[in-house]
C-alpha cells in the first residue's frame, strides 16, 4: 500500500495580549508547518481550546485578566497531559518553579530566541518529533482519508515507545508498510527491520528462522545459524500473519517477550535480545483465542497497541490520490507518458468494493495503463480490467508455487546455501532439489557469502 498526504499538522494555540508577540510566534511556527491559532487573552484561549483541540499551548505569563498560571490550571483541569509552554518577560525563579509545579512543560524568558523556542516546542511534545519523522518516512505513503490519518497519528504516537504494536487488516491493506513506517520513525531506525511471514514457513523451520539453531540441532543443520531475532537486535521485527503461528511456537515466543532472550534450537545457552516486536494478521485473533488456536496470554502481550487498517472501500477518499500515484509510477517505470482516467472511470474506481484492497487497485490500474492506447483511460476499459481481475486471488497453482519458493529460500538460508543439507531437510535428493532451484531461479551461492540477509522471509 502506498499512502501520502500533507501530513496532519500539529496544532499550537498561542496566547499573548501583545499582537506583535503573536505575529512573531505565528510566523516562526507556520514556517515550520505547524497549524496555529491565536488568542489575545486567557479567556479567549479557554474558549478556543474546546473547538480547536490544540496539541500544545504556548502562553504568556503576565496578561490582563486571566494570567498564564490561571490559564494553565484551567487547561490541566480538562486535560492534565496537554503540554503548555510558559513565556515570561521576567526571569523570576519562583514563577518558573511554580509554573513547573503546576505542570508547565517548559518556561522560557523573553526576548525569545527563535531556535530555542522551536526546539522547546519540539522537545516538550514528543509526538511532534515523531510526526515529523514519520512524515519523512512516509513519503511513499499516500492517503487522504480521516481513517488513515488516524492510523498514522496513532502510529506516530507509539513509534518511539517500545510497546508491542498489533496491526490488523485484510490482505492488501498495507500492514507491513505501516510497520516499516513505525520502525523508521522510532529510535531503532538505524538498525534492521526484519519482516517474517509466519504463515509461509513450516513449523520446524520457523523456529529455527526466528531463534536460530546450533550445529547438529537437526538433520542438515551442519552449521550454526543465527535466528532473525538476533539478526534484528537493536531494531524491529515484524511477525506477519502471526495468527498462523503454531501453538508450540507461540509458547516460545511468549517466553522471548517475557525474558528478552532467545534460546536457539539445540542450544543450552540463551542470548539476550533487544528487539521491538510488531505483529500483524488478517485473521480475527479474538475468535482464534476462543477456539484455543491462539494463546490468550500471548494475544494480550502482543496487542498492547492495536492498529486496525480499514479496507479500501471504507476509505474511498484515498482512491483518487492512490490512483494518481500508481499511474505516475507506471509511467515512470515504463518510460511512458502519464495516463489518466476519464471522470466517469474515476467515479467507477471510487465506487468499487475492492475486496483485494490497495494491492488489487494497483493491479487494476497497472492493467488499465497497459491496455489503454489513449492518454485518457475510458470507463469501458476499467470495467473490463476489474472484471478480469476481480480480486486477484492467487490460483491454487500460484499459491503452491509461492509457498514452494518461500520454503526453498528458507532452507537455503538455514543451511547457508549448502544444497546437500538443504535437500536433506526438504526430504529430496540433490538432483531433484537442484531442479527445483532452477525452476524458481534460485541461486544457492547467494546464500553462502552473506551470514544473513535482512530481506523479507516469504
Amino acid at each position, binding site marked *: 500500500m502506498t499512502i501520502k498526504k500533507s501530513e496532519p499538522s500539529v496544532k499550537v494555540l498561542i496566547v499573548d495580549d501583545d499582537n506583535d508577540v503573536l505575529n512573531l510566534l505565528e510566523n516562526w511556527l507556520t514556517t515550520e508547518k505547524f497549524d496555529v491559532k491565536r488568542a489575545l487573552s486567557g479567556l479567549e484561549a479557554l474558549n478556543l481550546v474546546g473547538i480547536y483541540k490544540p496539541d500544545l499551548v504556548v502562553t504568556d505569563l503576565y496578561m490582563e485578566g486571566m494570567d498564564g498560571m490561571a490559564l494553565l490550571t484551567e487547561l490541566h483541569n480538562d486535560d492534565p497531559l496537554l503540554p503548555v509552554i510558559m513565556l515570561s518577560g521576567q526571569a523570576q525563579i519562583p514563577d518558573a518553579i511554580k509554573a513547573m509545579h503546576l505542570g508547565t512543560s517548559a518556561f522560557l524568558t*523573553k526576548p525569545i530566541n527563535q531556535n530555542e523556542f522551536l526546539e522547546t516546542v519540539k522537545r516538550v511534545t514528543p509526538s511532534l518529533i515523531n510526526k515529523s519523522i514519520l512524515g519523512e518516512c512516509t513519503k511513499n505513503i499516500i492517503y487522504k482519508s480521516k481513517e488513515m490519518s488516524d492510523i498514522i497519528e496513532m502510529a506516530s504516537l507509539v513509534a518511539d515507545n517500545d510497546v508491542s504494536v498489533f496491526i490488523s487488516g485484510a490482505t492488501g491493506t498495507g500492514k507491513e508498510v505501516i510497520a516499516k513506517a513505525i520502525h523508521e520513525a522510532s529510535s531503532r531506525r538505524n538498525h534492521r527491520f526484519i519482516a517474517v511471514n509466519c504463515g509461509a514457513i513450516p513449523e520446524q523451520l520457523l523456529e529455527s528462522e526466528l531463534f536460530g539453531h546450533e550445529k547438529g540441532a537437526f538433520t542438515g543443520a551442519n552449521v550454526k545459524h543465527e535466528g532473525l531475532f538476533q539478526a534484528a537486535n537493536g531494531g524491529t521485527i515484524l511477525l506477519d500473519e502471526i495468527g498462523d503461528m503454531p501453538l508450540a511456537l507461540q509458547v516460545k515466543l511468549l517466553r522471548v517477550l517475557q525474558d528478552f532472550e532467545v534460546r536457539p534450537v539445540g542450544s543450552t545457552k540463551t542470548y539476550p535480545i533487544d528487539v521491538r516486536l510488531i505483529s500483524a494478521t488478517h485473521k480475527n485473533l479474538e475468535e482464534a483465542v476462543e477456539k484455543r488456536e491462539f494463546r490468550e496470554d500471548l494475544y494480550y502481550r502482543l496487542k498492547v497497541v492495536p492498529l486496525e487498517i480499514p479496507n479500501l472501500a471504507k476509505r474511498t477518499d484515498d482512491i483518487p490520490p492512490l490512483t494518481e500515484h500508481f499511474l505516475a509510477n507506471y509511467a515512470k517505470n515504463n518510460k511512458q507518458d502519464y495516463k489518466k482516467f476519464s471522470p466517469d472511470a474515476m467515479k467507477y474506481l471510487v465506487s468499487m468494493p475492492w475486496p483485494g484492497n490497495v494491492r488489487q487497485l494497483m493491479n487494476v490500474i497497472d492493467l488499465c495503463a497497459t491496455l489503454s492506447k489513449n492518454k485518457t483511460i475510458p470507463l469501458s476499459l476499467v470495467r473490463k480490467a476489474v472484471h478480469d481481475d476481480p480480486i486477484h486471488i492467487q490460483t491454487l497453482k500460484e499459491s503452491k508455487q509461492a509457498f514452494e519458493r518461500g520454503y526453498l529460500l528458507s532452507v537455503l538460508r538455514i543451511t547457508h546455501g549448502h544444497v546437500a543439507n538443504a535437500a536433506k531437510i526438504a526430504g529430496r535428493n540433490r538432483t531433484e532439489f537442484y531442479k527445483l532451484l532452477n525452476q524458481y531461479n534460485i541461486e544457492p551461492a547467494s546464500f553462502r557469502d552473506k551470514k544473513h540477509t535482512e530481506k523479507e522471509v516469504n
Partner: protein
Amino acid sequence: MSDEKIIIQVDPDLEELIPGFLENRNADIAKLRSFLDDKDFINIQSIGHSTKGVGGGYGFDLMSELGAEIESAAKESDADKIRETINQLDDYLRRIEIEYA
C-alpha cells in the same frame, strides 16, 4: 544624536511583519511620552516590559535592552531616566535600516 544609520539584519520570513511592528513601536514612543507627562509609571512599566519581550525576537536586540531599562526605571519612578531612555529608543527607531538576510 547621530544620523548614522543602524543596519539591522532581519530574517526574510519576517519581512511582512516588520512595517507593522515598527509602526507599533513608534506609537509606543508617543504613548510613553504621554504616560510620562502623567507620571503613569504603571503603564510605562508595562510598555517597557512588552518592548523588552518582543524586540529581540524580531532581531532588534537593543530595543529589548532599552525596553528593560524603561521597565526598570518605571519601577523606580525615575522620570529622568525614563525620558532619556525613551529618547534613545526614539533615536534608535529613526536610524534603523532593515536588511533582510
